[in-house]
């Protein structure tokens, strides 16, 4: 089972996302996965992501959102990260905007790894120190280092 720090793309970190609403941010982050050929069928991937967003609140509270999709449009499991200083509405149950956004893409046949990745990332992001550090980092490399430190 991969660690979070092993599957987050080193060039998949956006310290200040351009988007101000969730679909725009998801598209911005997904574009990285498309450019890296992790996502092989963008239309199908967006469909899977949007279907989930319509059914769930992928904002898990405390300023964190983890939009995710498991679909055959994905070649290998990967995570990209975006930060929004202003915050984005991901319909979190605590009503707070999300500042730390992790987009997870997984292939259809990797259900166990996908669920464990979601669980480990959610666990990591419940740590106040980890969230605070991610809010204040200055470089993509620091994101990987912080995740490595706290996982």
């Amino acid at each position: 089972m991969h660690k979070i720090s092993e599957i987050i793309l080193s060039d998949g970190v956006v310290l200040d996302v351009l988007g101000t609403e969730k679909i725009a941010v998801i598209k911005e982050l997904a574009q990285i996965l498309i450019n890296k050929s992790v996502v092989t069928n963008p239309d199908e991937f967006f469909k899977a992501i949007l279907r989930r967003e319509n059914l769930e609140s992928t904002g898990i509270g405390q300023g964190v959102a983890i939009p995710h999709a498991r679909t055959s449009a994905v070649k290998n499991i990967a995570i990209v990260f975006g930060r929004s200083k202003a915050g984005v509405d991901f319909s979190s149950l605590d009503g707070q905007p999300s500042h730390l956004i992790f987009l997870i893409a997984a292939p259809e046949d990797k259900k166990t790894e996908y669920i464990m990745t979601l669980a480990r990332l959610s666990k990591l992001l419940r740590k106040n120190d980890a969230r605070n550090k991610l809010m204040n980092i200055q470089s993509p490399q620091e994101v990987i280092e912080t995740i490595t430190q706290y996982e």
Partner: protein
Amino acid sequence: MKLEKILLYVEPKTAVDTISRFTINLARPNNARVFVLSIILHPMQKIKTRIDEQAWKRLYEIEEDAFEAGIKISLLLEELEKISRDNLTQKLIDLSKSYQVDLIIFASNAKININKLNSGITIPIFIVPPQSTNNPDVKNKSIQ
């Protein structure tokens, strides 16, 4: 009976395949949203972290089943610093009121204060011990 929101309580470490399928099947014809709740009771940080991961895993497993069934779902992982029947009951009351749920499905062996629950909320609660929930003959243990 209105059934727009269901609160499903599950224990972090116990598989509840049958009861989660039951909940999904109940939600589907009513187009109800399911709030899946797990509560971490242990206050020790080291153990809590491990249970935390197990609890999230359980929640995401149910989320995936619900997603495949097209059910609206929200995940809740709450913490209680002290283990007690009253604390757990109060948390159920608070969350039920906060999310205005119409039914609680309590898939746990944990003890709750039925009298307190009765005085706090007026919705049905379906209590199912988790060891029964993988048995297709699972029976309703208590309906308020």
